[in-house]
């Protein structure tokens, strides 16, 4: 115990910077009222271990809490159900002190047992969680099953100790993922596989009604442990609503937030009307759209060819195709992501230089290849623009326009020489540069079926990535980000991707909606942070 106290004192300073920052509530915020949010697709599940759509992501955030959380509207970590935490000097042991008196929606008090149960559950292969892989650093992950994770220990009712098998600088972000939400065992057991339809959490809202295919109603959790929030009494989600119809209903005063955004066909009309444009909040998002070049398939095994393709693609023109709803990209990380290299120039659009590189690779006459693309607008149009750009340097790209699942399959199997990522592009799970590497550019994702569609695998870059992620000390964060910038510079030198653009987010809201703009383009709660917005 003494030893534990000493180590606590030693590392408490590390935890302080994160604890120091928090959210300043809006002085104009008013409690009460209900809002209506629409979606085209029905909500698949509200089980935090299963839900992985951008649509249910923010809903789950409002129903559940994890040990860690983010300051609303930012990418800054803050403690959630944990009141405080400390990290052992070797970065392997995280001890979380839980808040007292936090109650689940069923009235029972949340304890350390629930935290352990929830982490055991999400990593148990029987749960089939798409997020299980995020917890790979916890000791005993490989043997996870009904017996639970050996690395997660209940010290007492208010203390959980998590031991890692390797230092992981992103671990606190992982604990803020929906997958790490704390759930009550008795409710999961009672509902069985239907827990996703009858969720019970500790969140700001509880599920009051769910009529399949029609609507979900979230009701304010009056006993919520964060004082003062949520402001809204109710959030009504109406599903099965075409984005165009949702927009008409918003203009008619029936809808407050069209969850699927402004339909592309209506974008210019909305933005061209000052009254409507004033209701739109614009912000960045942790997204990059890219073309993957399969480095295992000739001639893309030649770095000159990949660099030539990078120079041949006119990114400005492609952003125009989507009405300027994006900014041209020159590196894998989006500008809002920590670690983004502002000074990196990238490959400028230069057809002549591209041709010269093609000639250097012995391919002055060009070659024929396939460009895979998801078949929903605007992706085929973007693929056509890429096709034209490539034709200018002699590459004849045949467009393979397929359903999303088929493109993912071709990418995973490594049969696609080029893929435009649109509609499947990477949106970060958490705001950390490592999230853009491992599965999509690292060796781990390059195997059969992985999401690294370039099949790019550079052992020295992988080693650098591991080194960066072992720098768990928050004080070393700037060094760590610099190391990550080096990794991405190394990736770009070998050019397995053509980063094309970073999509901007445009959230439209009704006039009566209040709360600062950042809440409507929250990088973590997409589209809206329901806990903090209010009705004027």
């Amino acid at each position, binding site marked *: 115990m003494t030893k534990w106290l000493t180590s606590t004192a030693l590392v408490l300073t590390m935890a302080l910077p994160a604890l120091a920052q928090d959210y300043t509530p809006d002085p104009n915020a008013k409690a009460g009222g209900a809002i209506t949010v629409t979606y085209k697709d029905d909500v698949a599940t509200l089980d935090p271990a299963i839900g992985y759509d951008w649509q249910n992501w923010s809903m789950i955030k409002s129903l559940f809490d994890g040990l860690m959380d983010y300051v609303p509207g930012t990418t800054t970590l803050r403690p959630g159900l944990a009141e405080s935490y400390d990290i052992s000097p070797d970065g392997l042991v995280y001890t979380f002190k839980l808040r007292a008196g936090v109650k689940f929606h069923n009235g029972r008090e949340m304890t350390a047992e629930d935290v352990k149960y929830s982490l055991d559950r999400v990593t148990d292969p029987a749960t089939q969680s*798409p997020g299980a892989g995020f917890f790979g650093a916890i000791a005993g992950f490989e043997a996870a099953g009904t017996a639970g994770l050996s690395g997660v220990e209940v010290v007492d009712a208010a203390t959980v100790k998590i031991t890692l098998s390797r230092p992981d600088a992103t671990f606190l972000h992982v604990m803020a993922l929906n997958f790490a939400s704390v759930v009550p065992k008795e409710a999961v057991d009672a509902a069985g596989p239907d827990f996703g339809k009858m969720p019970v959490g500790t969140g700001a809202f509880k599920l009051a009604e769910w009529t399949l295919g029609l609507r979900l109603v979230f009701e304010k959790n009056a006993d919520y442990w964060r004082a003062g929030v949520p402001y809204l009494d109710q959030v009504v989600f109406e599903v099965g609503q075409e984005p165009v119809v949702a927009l008409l209903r918003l203009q008619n005063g029936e809808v407050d937030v069209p969850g699927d955004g402004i339909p592309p066909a209506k974008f210019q009309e909305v933005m061209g009307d000052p009254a409507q444009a004033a209701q739109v909040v614009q912000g960045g998002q942790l997204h990059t759209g890219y073309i993957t070049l399969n480095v295992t398939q000739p001639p893309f095994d030649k770095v000159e060819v990949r660099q030539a393709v990078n120079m041949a693609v006119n990114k400005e023109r492609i952003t125009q195709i989507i009405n300027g709803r994006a900014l041209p990209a020159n590196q894998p990380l989006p500008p809002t992501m920590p670690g983004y290299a502002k000074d990196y120039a990238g490959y400028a659009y230069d057809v002549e230089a591209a041709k010269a590189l093609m000639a250097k690779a012995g391919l002055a006459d060009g070659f024929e290849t396939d460009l895979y693309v998801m078949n929903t607008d605007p992706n085929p149009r973007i693929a056509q623009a890429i096709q034209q750009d490539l034709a200018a340097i002699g590459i004849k790209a045949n467009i393979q326009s397929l359903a999303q699942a088929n493109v993912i399959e071709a990418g995973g199997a490594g049969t696609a020489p080029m893929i435009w990522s649109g509609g499947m592009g990477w949106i970060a799970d958490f705001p950390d540069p490592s999230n853009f590497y491992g599965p999509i550019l690292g060796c781990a994702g390059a195997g059969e079926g992985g999401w690294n569609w370039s099949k790019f695998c550079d052992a020295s870059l992988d080693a650098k990535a591991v080194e960066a992620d072992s720098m768990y000390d928050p004080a070393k964060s700037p060094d760590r980000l610099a190391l990550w910038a080096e990794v991405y510079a190394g990736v770009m030198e070998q050019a397995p991707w053509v980063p094309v653009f970073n999509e901007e987010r445009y959230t439209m809201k009704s006039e009566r909606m209040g709360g600062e703009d950042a809440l409507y383009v929250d990088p973590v709660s997409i589209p809206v942070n329901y806990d903090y917005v209010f009705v004027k």
Partner: protein
Amino acid sequence: MAAYFLRRLIQSALILLGVSFITYVLLFVLPADPVRQIAGRAATAQTVENIRQQLGLDQPFLVQYGRYLANLVQGDLGRSYLQKTEVGDLITSRLPATLLLMLAGIAAELVLGLTMGIAAALMRGRFGDQVLMMTSFVTVSAPQFVVSLLMLYIFAVKLGWFPIGGYGTAAHLVLPAVTLGILGSGWYSRMMRSSMIEVLRADYIRTARAKGLGRARVVLRHALPNAVLPIIAMIGIDIGIFMGGIVVVESVFGWPGIGQLAWQAIQRVDIPIIMGVTLVSALAIVVGNLLADLIAPFIDPRIRLR
């Protein structure tokens, strides 16, 4: 009659078996892996294999299909891969909405189509006939999505007569049903027109006229019941086409039917839902045809079911 019914029932079961087999084969050979969709992008190869085993997707085709059938005969459609919910529950919660819209849509189709067809037949060769037949041509070829949106825009947004999409009251039903009616009325009006023209030429109509019966009585009492016969059989066939159109109309009007469910499932390769919806749709078509055949003798005593 009983023997006929039994034979048709066995036939129907065989058709459904065939549909299930073909759909299962298509989903099996599809170059898209449902396990990838479940496992998500952060999954390790180990996780993917685990899920594949748990769902039995590592088994040979015939084993998978056999298991599916074995559950199916017990009334178990399985659980959705992604929603983890019983497919039976998902379908039964949405089926009433689809059936309601289907009935209302077919009613609208018949009222519009038959009226147009009769009117055209009576005005045969004249300007009115040409206008009506041109209209039917336009409605049959009009894109469903555009017509649906146009109806919504004019009657809900601009005129405000009906709610802008949604479900719940009779007012919500009017626009989608009328839209389906307009889109499908063309077939019926053309069919009804030719059927009516033929009947109006018949001897018994001339006799009826010769007896001095009024025009309305001749048309409604003597011509219509005979002219409508081929239309009854057509409704059975139409249900199949209707299931296609309903997907689009449901999606524009936010109607919570099985069309929406199917569309989402196809995007994500959620095989149990795709199978369930396909089977239920096939069942609707089979039952529709059966009913049309069973009703026919009641309307025309000359028809005998054997």
